[in-house]
Each structure stands twice: as C-alpha cells, then as structure tokens.
C-alpha cells in the first residue's frame, strides 16, 4: 500500500518482481556465457539459440589441454596466465591499498596548503582515457626495460589504482569522528598507533569496498596487458583475446569456458567480502 511510510517489512510482490527483473537483466549475459561454455560448437551457433541442450565439458578440456597434429595431448599453459593474473592483480591492488590508505589518512588528518589541489591533480590522471597515454607509456617501458616484466605491469596497475584508492579511503576517514583519535592521543598513543589501532579498524568496510573495485578493474584490464606483458607475464584477458580468430573463426565454446573460469575468482572475493562491501558502498549515503 502506498501509505507514504517507510516500513521495515519485507518488500511487497511488485517490488520483489522488479528487483528480480533488474537482477535477471544484469545477470543474463553472465548466464549466457556460462551456458555457452557447456555447449558444443553446433549448439553454440544454433539459431534460434538453444536453452535446452546436451551439456559437454569439451570446451573446458580445450582450455586446459591442447592436442598436437600427431595426436599428443599436452597442457595448454593456461594455468600460467591465471597465476599471472592473480599475482599481478593481487600485488597491485595490495600495493595501491597500502599506499592509498596511508596517503588518504594523511590527506584527511594532516591537510596541506592546497590540499584540494593535490587531490584534484591525483584524480586528473584518471580523467583521460588510458588509450591516450598508451604510446608514451609503451616508450617509457621499452626504454627502462620494464616491458614484459612483472614489476612493470604491477607498478602500472598500482599507479592506476592509487587515485581511486586515495579518494575512496579519504572519504571513509573523513567520516570518522576525530574525537576518537584525539582521545587515543590523550591516552598516550602516538600517531602510528592511533592510525593502526584506532582509525584503521573503523574503515574495514572501506578497505573491502576499495579492494574489490580495484581488483575488478585490474583483473579485467586488457589494453595495457596486451601491449606491456610478454609471453611469460601474459594475463588471462590477453589469453582470452588470443582464442578469437584462427582458422575456424571464433571458438565461442572455448572462449565462454575461459571467461567462465575467469569470473570465478572475482565472484569468490566479492562474496567473501559481501557484508563489508554492502556497508562500504552505502557508508556515505547513510552517514551524511
């Protein structure tokens, strides 16, 4: 009933319906990819598309193993790409989180003259599309020998994630009651102790939200990975792209199988942090 009062009861059937509808629309592409991963080539290309079909694991087999012309079956080396993705994304998100949180705390608690200008300058690096800077970065990487190395791509991703981490974490620190930290100081704590024991535990939700967002961006990044990683440091998005093309055209089944596998780690992390994440993304809206 449209009484105008906000209730804390369960949503009515209409709202439930729309919630489901929106959910399904958002989830449909993912669902379709996972479905295709279990289809044979014929089923995947069938028109009209098939919802009911005999599932097969051939696509997943094709992801992990390759058959040479002599009929010999060997590993496809896809594990390396997954390991690369996990290592590169994990390290750069962690680095960005550590540096970003420290910087955000400093910006929030010890403002400099022209604090807002610094913050704007930091964010401005994210205002241009990455493609604009790709040539200079490519040249810099070639000159410094960072091309194809882990350290190069990790540094690059860390740099990309930093502005976002700083801004996000600063807003969380800004929302804290500074009296709590004053109190800790009066109780004899030094700056590091106030930061580590008092301030940091209060922004757990912010750390979770920031790391998930940064992780998703980094995990999915394609262009820089394509240009700046070598055969040994290649990430999954680049490997996925390389399955497109070839003599049989796009192998939709194999592509979908790889994408499905690629989604799993992000799903797991997001679910693990779900409670914190919800608090994290609604933090500012509730408090202000």
């Amino acid at each position, binding site marked *: 009933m449209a009484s105008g009062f906000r209730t804390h009861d369960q949503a009515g059937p209409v709202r439930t319906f729309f919630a489901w509808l929106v959910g399904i629309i958002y989830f449909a592409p993912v669902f379709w990819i996972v479905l295709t991963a279990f289809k044979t080539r014929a089923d995947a290309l069938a028109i009209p598309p098939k919802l009911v079909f005999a599932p097969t694991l051939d696509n997943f087999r094709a992801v992990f193993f390759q058959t040479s012309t002599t009929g010999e079956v060997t590993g496809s080396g896809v594990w390396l790409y997954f390991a690369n993705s996990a290592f590169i994304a994990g390290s750069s998100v962690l680095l960005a989180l550590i540096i970003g949180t420290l910087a955000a705390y400093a910006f929030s608690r010890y403002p400099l003259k022209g604090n807002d200008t610094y913050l704007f300058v930091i964010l401005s690096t994210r205002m241009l599309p990455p493609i604009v800077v790709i040539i200079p970065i490519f040249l810099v990487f070639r000159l410094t020998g960072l091309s194809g190395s882990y350290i190069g791509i990790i540094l690059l991703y860390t740099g990309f994630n930093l502005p976002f981490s700083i801004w996000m974490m600063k807003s969380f620190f800004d929302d804290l009651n500074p009296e*709590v930290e*004053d109190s800790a*100081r*009066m109780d004899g*704590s030094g700056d590091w102790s106030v930061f580590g024991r*008092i301030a940091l*535990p209060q922004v757990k939700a912010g750390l979770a939200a920031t790391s998930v967002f940064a992780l998703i961006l980094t995990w999915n990044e394609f262009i820089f990975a394509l240009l700046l990683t070598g055969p040994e440091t290649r990430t999954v998005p680049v490997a996925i792209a390389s399955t497109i093309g070839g003599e049989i055209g796009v192998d939709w089944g194999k592509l979908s199988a790889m994408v499905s596998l690629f989604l799993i780690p992000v799903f797991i992390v997001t679910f693990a942090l779900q409670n914190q994440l919800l608090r994290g993304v609604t933090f500012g809206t509730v408090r202000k």
Partner: protein
Amino acid sequence: MNELKLTGLTKYFGDFAAVRDVDLTVKPDEVLCLLGPSGCGKTTTLRMIAGLESATQGAVYFGDRDVTHLPARDRDVAMAFQFYALYPDLTVGQNLAYPLQAEAPTPAESADRLARIAEILQLTEVLDRYPHQLSEGEKQRVAVGRCVIRAPNAFLFDEPLSRLDAKLRDEMRGSIRKILATLDRPTVIVTHDQLEAMTMGDRIAVMRDGKVEQIGRPLDVFERPANIFVAGFIGTPQMNLLKGRCLAVNDTGLEVDLSGQMIRLPSGPFATLPQTGAEVTLGFRPRAAARAQDDAVSLQAARVFLSENMGAETLVHSDWNGQNLRVLAHGPGHPEGQVHDVQVDPADLTLFGADGIRITRKSDKEAA
C-alpha cells in the same frame, strides 16, 4: 598533587578570537566548571589544556611545569569527550584499559583497576560488549571510566551529561560528583547547563565571547553576579532585568524611573551609588517576588500574558510597561489577562550600572 594553572591563555582561529586572555587556577582537589553559551570558547579552552589545540598566546602549567608546547600524548591528561569517543572496535574492557598503556602497570594491577572501575560504574556485566551494543547511559559511563582509570595530571570533562535523558542525567550528576570527590586531581568540566555547573563545581567560571566574565563559588555567582550577562545566564527561571534611569541620588535613597513608574530604594546598603541621570538595570530573581514583605518595592499593574503551571509552582509571565516580568507563584491560578502587582524586597534587588557591572553592596565582603 599539582594545581592546574592557565595564564593569559588566548586562541585565535584566523582573525577570530575564540579564547581571550583566560587566567585560571584549579587546585588539586577542586572541580572547576567552565560555563557559558555555545561558542563562548569553553571547549577550546579545554582542548588547549588537553594539548589538542595549540595556544596562540599564554601558557598552561601543571604545578611549576610549563606544558604549553607539549603534545597531547605527553601531557598525561584524561578527558571524557562530549560524544564519548569510545574506540568502536575495542570491547568495553579494552576501552577502559586503553589509557593504562601509558602508565604500564603490571598486568595484575591493570586487571585490578579495571575490575574496580567497572564495579563502581556498574559495567562489569558489559565488559565484553562493543560500544555499539551499549545504551546511551552505559556509553557515558564507559567514557567516564576510561577517564578516571588512571591518575593523570588533570581530568577534563566536555559536556559529560549532555547526551543523556533527564532522569539519567540527574542520576549521573550525583555519581560523577561522588567519583570526582575521591580523585584529588584538578578537574575541569565544560558545560552549558547552569544546573550542572551549580551542582558539580566547587567553583564556576562563566565565559562569554572567549572571556571569563566571573569566577566564584556557585552560590556567590548566583547571589552576586558580576554583571548583567552572568545574572541572566545563571539561575532558572532567568532573573528579571528591568531597565531604568536614576533620577535622584542622596544619602537616604535613590529614585529610579522604571518605565515611567517611580521606585525608591534605600541607598544605605550600596557601597557606591550611580550618578544622577545614569542608566541602571534592576534585577531580581523570579522566586524573590514570592516572598515579598510590606516594605517592598511594588511594580504595579502587570498584566499576565502566559502562565506556566509546573506543579508545585506557577511561572507567571507578565507585561509591565513594556518590560517582561517573570514571577514564581505558589500553586495554580493567575489566569492570562489578570492584572496584578509584583512586590520585591529591596534586599533581593540587584543593581547594575550603565556599564552592566553590578553595583556592590556593603554586605558583600562579609558574605564572601
């Protein structure tokens, strides 16, 4: 133990003077209440004592030691904040024990002190809970407990009771007073509530616009307010303040024109007298009107416009020649529109000069 001393303490925020030239001494066994309306600089003064705000000028001493430039963590001062400032990710027990890190007593002694404080403040049951699981009253007790668990150079309380409901506030006022009596350290309480200041402070410092207007024992401040501001700020209901002009002054008395009505006051009790033609303000407490005698000053034909029945007493607001009169009367009655005379004993009148400063009485010295 050492006293707490402020000399010429001043704080500017840009061009704005938040605190101006404050001189105060708080003895080791004394509770001083900083009282004033919001924005008068009382919290800034407290934060300067705490070391959370730097002083623009002046100094803070603990005994002979100048601590003006010491950071908060090295001052060893305990403070209870207005919004409690409990550590949200620590349990009640960890919150209470947090300040002990500075003194680093043995674990056994820590546990002992924690148990004692928890018992006094009835927090034993909730030691394992987190602040967000506590009631408002419990949070307030944790804040107080975290403050008094150690033996610092001074105790500071910022509006300690402002967030409690009326009933809890009455209870806590008593218990805090009891705890403070055992502490033997200089204590400063900031409050905007004059009832809190009157009941909890050994002395009150009334502040306005960053300056201390008057320091004194609660009753002295109540009975002999230094100026019109203090007179109006201390006491509920507020003191009546009537503007007038001094028409004639001689040895036997002074005549004051109050909104066209002539009032005669005996001049004998006053130590000094205003000049003829000077503007004066006559003040008297609403309660004083109720016990008026025959030789009273009579304010005639006041018209009641609001009658607030408070149970045992009624606060009667009347209009008297365009000036507002507040009188406390016994029992109900006094309907709106009624016209009545207000009688005040001349001994209950406070006289303020044109500068707003109270004109002293000869009896002041004996009382003080």
